[in-house]
């Protein structure tokens, strides 16, 4: 029977519960958002004892179906004050699923001054233990110590100094199949929520546990076979992503004139080719890194990589398009090694790379850093290590906070979360998502770049208004459902273009659980999740006025297409499902 593990961080009580009642049949984002909606007071302070951190594998995680090893982490976001689901790869999710644990709920809050604890879970149970030597360490050193102590087969979820010090831009990092803590639940400052509970790490050892059986093994096997074919046969999931990683987007987004450059002043960067996926792969091959690898076992898409420095030593992995953009064209930095070092520092400090890139842009706007100076950016970011460094504390608190600290008025955030790597004026579908998703500024929640630029799943003019509200709404529903399954969101490229893909997903869920789940139920799942999320935000005080982009997007034209953001807040409400 699938179970929930409830951990009280104050009195150290740990209890197993069955997944029943309002939580029955839920997984991933479906479960995290339902628990937040039901158990977290919407108006609470995100760092208070009333907030909870929920970790949940997806409905199909732990099965043999390809690309199902993703994980949802939820809570009330310390950064935005909204509900939050942040999605990550790594080995942790499949280990939870193997132990038939569908969710971890971290509750309450230890007294001030209490030491950090580590939660260890194995087949014999779970316990909170103190490992003082990892407190204050970066995630790379901390996870290396934890592998030494618990063996190399464990999965690790860990925060860095940023999370320990409850910085608002902090991430939660997960170890990948090579043991590198490079996979992040990056967005929304959930590392600060974990830090507020005084949990430095969660270590899971699933050895000796027997994975749950499929309700209909043969039907599942057949559906999983077809599912793998769908992914392998699509040119994006079968060829493009494995060959170049996600930074393959740099050149096309630049060509489309929507690559945000110098804090969203232009849609083109004259040095885009220096930071492109093509260039990254050239460097990786020259330095004997690894050009393609997965973030979890059973991944077919293989968009990750191991990036070595110029001496051939490992520097970083999970080095993604959004990160390359955030520290690259956004800051006018064109040295890919400097960008890779900034990525490594973020993973090690436990900081969201998107939020931190836009934060450094605020420092550049304020004159603290020169535009384009990668080495000085690295120096500044290292200051986040020291909890007593006030400038480091400001930078660790993200874009909105840093802009306020220095009087910057060009602040690319929605609900205090920074916008990612597509200028919304020239990719209006994703702009609608930025404005309206319950998550705050976020692209994954409704990735209309597919239809606006990539011509996957349709073709909608990125510069005009027509069709962009509708596509964002539909994608937000579909994405919520995908995030409940444990699928990597990149399966969407193939799903959008393949006729029998939704039926295949429905068959996987039906045969896994022995119930009749149809393609229509997928959309229903997405709608239910969004209802939980939008109603939480409403009760937390968010209104239609919060669903709009910063005014410089409305007032300034973006070259080269010279377009403005022209949706009204009222029009944007149509992208939200009714609650």
């Amino acid at each position, binding site marked *: 029977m699938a179970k929930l593990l409830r951990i009280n961080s104050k009195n150290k009580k740990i209890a197993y519960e069955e997944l029943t009642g309002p939580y029955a049949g839920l997984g991933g984002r479906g479960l995290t958002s339902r628990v937040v909606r039901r158990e977290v007071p919407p108006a609470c302070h995100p760092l208070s004892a009333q907030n909870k951190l929920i970790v949940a594998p997806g409905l199909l995680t732990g099965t043999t179906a390809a690309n199902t090893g993703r994980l949802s982490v939820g809570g009330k976001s310390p950064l935005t004050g909204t509900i939050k689901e942040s999605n990550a790869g790594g080995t942790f999710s499949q280990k939870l699923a193997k132990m038939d644990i569908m969710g971890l709920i971290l509750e309450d809050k230890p007294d001030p001054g209490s030491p950090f604890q580590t939660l260890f879970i194995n087949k014999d149970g779970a316990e909170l233990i103190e490992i003082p030597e990892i407190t204050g360490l970066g995630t790379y050193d901390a996870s290396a110590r934890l592998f030494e102590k618990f063996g190399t087969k464990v999965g690790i979820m860990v925060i860095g100094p940023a999370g320990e010090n409850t910085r608002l831009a902090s991430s939660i990092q997960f170890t990948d199949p090579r043991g590198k803590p490079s996979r992040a639940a990056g967005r929304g400052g959930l590392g600060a929520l974990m830090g507020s509970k005084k949990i430095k790490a969660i270590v899971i050892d699933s050895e000796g546990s027997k994975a749950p059986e499929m309700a209909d093994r043969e039907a599942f096997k057949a559906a999983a076979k077809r599912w793998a074919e769908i992914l392998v046969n699509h040119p994006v999931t079968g060829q493009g992503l494995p060959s170049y990683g996600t930074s393959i987007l740099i050149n096309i987004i630049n060509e489309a004139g929507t690559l945000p450059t110098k804090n969203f002043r232009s849609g083109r960067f004259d040095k885009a080719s220096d930071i492109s996926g093509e260039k990254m792969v050239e460097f990786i091959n020259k330095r004997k890194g690894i050009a393609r690898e997965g973030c979890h076992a059973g991944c077919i898409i293989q968009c990750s990589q191991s990036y070595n420095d110029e001496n051939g030593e490992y520097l970083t992995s999970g080095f993604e398009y959004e990160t390359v953009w955030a520290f690259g064209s956004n800051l006018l930095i064109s040295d890919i090694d400097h960008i890779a070092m900034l990525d490594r520092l973020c993973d090690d400090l436990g900081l969201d790379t998107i939020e931190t890139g836009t934060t450094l842009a605020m420092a550049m706007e304020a004159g603290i850093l020169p535009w384009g100076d990668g080495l000085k950016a690295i120096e500044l970011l290292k200051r986040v290590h020291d909890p007593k460094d006030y400038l480091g504390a400001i930078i660790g608190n993200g874009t909105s906070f840093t802009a306020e600290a220095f009087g910057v008025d060009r602040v690319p955030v929605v609900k205090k979360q920074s916008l990612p790597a597509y200028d919304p004026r020239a990719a209006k579908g994703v702009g609608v998502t930025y404005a309206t998703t319950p998550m705050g500024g976020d692209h994954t929640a409704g990735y209309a770049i597919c239809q606006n*630029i990539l011509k996957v799943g349709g073709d909608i003019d990125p510069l005009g208004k027509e069709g962009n509200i509708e596509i964002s709404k539909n994608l937000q529903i579909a994405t919520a459902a995908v995030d409940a399954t444990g699928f990597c969101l990149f399966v969407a490229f193939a799903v959008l273009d393949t006729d029998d893909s939704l039926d295949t997903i429905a068959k996987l869920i039906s045969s896994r659980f022995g119930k009749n789940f149809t393609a229509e139920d997928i959309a229903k799942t997405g709608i239910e999740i969004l209802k939980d999320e939008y109603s939480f935000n409403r009760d937390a005080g968010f209104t239609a006025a919060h669903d709009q982009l910063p005014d410089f997007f409305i007032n300034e034209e973006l070259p080269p297409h010279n377009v403005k953001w022209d949706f009204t807040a009222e029009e944007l409400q149509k992208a939200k499902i009714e609650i």
Partner: protein
Amino acid sequence: MRIQVSCFATLSRYAPTDGFLEIKEGATPIDVIDQLSIPREEVKIVFVNGQNSGKEIELQEDDRVGIFPAIGGG
């Protein structure tokens, strides 16, 4: 007349060395694809001056053409 042409990802090997191409009056992106010997089925997206104008639009002097295979990420 002369246009600017870039080819990306798996198609980069077909790009003209200096980034420019002489084409006939009235030529379209399809003609450019053929002139560069790019297999048509490998081309998913063509941008002309940053817009997806289709493969049959008539090109003008100094146009900027970007040719891409199927691409995704995010």
